[in-house]
């Protein structure tokens, strides 16, 4: 027997070197740092597009947000005497996504407040990575939008550098609301192409649907996100705005315009899909994406804010525990009375 093993080159370990431990025994080497590095790779197309369209402004904001986020996290771990967590790159990812959500004219202090809010208030106060109920970047964008509406809406046309107000595609909707012709003009093919490529005003990283789509497909290829979330979100927005556009052509442009403009793409692929703040089950992910889509459309079409993606993501984050509760996977042979019987036995229901 032992000769046979030697012949096949299967070496059994020395009995003294065997380690007794509980499962799992095999680990493929995946870690938070490796996952975050993959997310960073998937963010590269969007980062490249932002630098291409907004040049130095984009570089400036990216560097500010990334470094402020890392400093905030390092400072927090230092102050609370914990092991430093900046090595897992999660602060860097938050910083880059936050930067992509800021307008090209964002001053340094806006980046600072946003970064500190995202890392300290939204993440660390709740116990750090994996404990936060809200997506840090989305909540920080909401906080900045509510608190500093002026600097957050100083838009610049790409690559020109001159700051103009209200030049975003979504701002254009509110400007021409009531005219069916103007809405049809917004939804014209060459205009849609501009939106798809990203040569329009907006936050530095959200303008190019193409670049974000490439990164988003990368996220799916790496199996880092649930495809149900972006699919449900984009499909809901498509159907909702399509129906509203058909019913009232003067109220809002066609569905493609809505999908390609504003923060829908970056929200759908990079913010809503956050592993920590999205539902666990596939069905829950579909519900979650649908909720974000509906809320986004309501805020965009009838609300005072031209864009509603970040608001919707934070509200849907708050709904996640309820969605998880309602969409858990039922084991084979499941009955509602079997659950209540279990609870009665545990003494939870009397």
């Amino acid at each position, binding site marked *: 027997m032992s000769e046979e093993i030697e012949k096949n080159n299967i070496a059994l370990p020395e009995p003294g070197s065997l380690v007794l431990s509980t499962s799992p025994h095999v680990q493929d080497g995946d870690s938070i740092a490796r996952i975050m590095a993959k997310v960073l790779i998937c963010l590269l197309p969007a980062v490249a597009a932002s630098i291409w369209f907004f040049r130095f402004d984009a570089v400036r904001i990216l560097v500010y947000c990334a470094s402020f986020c890392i400093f905030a996290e390092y400072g927090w771990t230092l102050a609370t005497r914990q092991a430093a967590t900046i090595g897992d790159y999660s602060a860097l990812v938050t910083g880059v996504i936050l930067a992509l959500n800021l307008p090209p004219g964002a001053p340094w202090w806006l980046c600072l407040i946003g970064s500190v809010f995202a890392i300290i208030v939204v993440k660390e106060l709740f116990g750090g990575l994996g404990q936060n109920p809200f997506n840090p970047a989305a909540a920080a964008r909401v906080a900045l939008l509510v608190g500093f509406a002026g600097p957050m809406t100083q838009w610049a046309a790409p690559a020109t550098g001159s700051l103009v107000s209200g030049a975003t595609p979504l701002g254009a909707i509110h400007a021409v609301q009531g005219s069916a012709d103007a809405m049809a003009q917004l939804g014209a093919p060459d205009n849609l192409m501009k939106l798809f490529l990203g040569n329009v005003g907006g936050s530095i990283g959200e303008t190019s649907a193409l670049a974000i789509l490439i990164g988003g497909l990368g996220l799916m290829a790496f199996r880092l996100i649930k495809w149900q979330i972006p699919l449900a979100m984009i499909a809901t927005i498509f159907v909702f705005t399509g129906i509203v556009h058909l019913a009232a052509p003067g109220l809002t442009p066609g569905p493609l315009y809505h999908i390609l403009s504003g923060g829908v793409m970056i929200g759908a692929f990079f913010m809503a899909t956050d592993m920590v703040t999205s539902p666990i089950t596939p069905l829950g992910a579909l519900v979650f994406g649908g909720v974000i889509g509906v809320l986004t459309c309501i805020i965009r079409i009838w609300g005072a804010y031209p864009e509603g993606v970040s608001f919707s993501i934070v509200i849907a984050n*708050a709904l996640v525990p*309820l969605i998880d509760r309602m969409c858990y996977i039922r084991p084979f042979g499941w009955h509602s009375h079997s659950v209540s019987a279990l609870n009665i036995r545990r003494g939870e229901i009397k």
Partner: protein
Amino acid sequence: MDTNEILVLTVGAILVNNVVLSRILGICPFLGVSKRIETALGMSGAVIFVMTLASFVTALFNRFLVTQTFTINGTEVDLSFTRILLFIVVIAALVQIVEILLKKFSPSLYVSLGIYLPLITTNCAVLGAAELNADASRGLISSTVFGFSTGVGFGLALLLFASIRERLAIARIPKAMEGTAIALVTAGILAMAFMGFSGLVK
């Protein structure tokens, strides 16, 4: 009153001017009974019930007593200064009557509402709804609709909040932030997100 007015009142009270997240009323039960979803649902039901009834009754008092001018011994008396006083007494009395009636006619509902029913007496959101109705000089039906929607808005905020808090109970929150502190931070972030609904109704 047409359907559009009802829609404006309901959406306004539930989402745009949510009684907890926008007007910051009724924070005591919001923090006190939001630790479990079941108790939050019980409290929401009780608040919707009482708020609808209280809005109707206070609107009656407002219409036929507070906004009227009476002549007593030849002097004209304006009773509007008694509004808050009257509303508090009316709401307290109403809650007591509801409690007695429930105890007599539906003991099971009475037991399931438990301590929350008497607690509503001191819930400032109920008084707030009544005061807002009086300020906007709404009619009887609009007042009742507003009271009901405000109650639903309270229930929505409480349910959302309770489900998050059940999750926070198992999170590794820093010692200094445990309990009410992190609950208030959560409520703040939630309130900011609800500001996205501003402008839905004029």
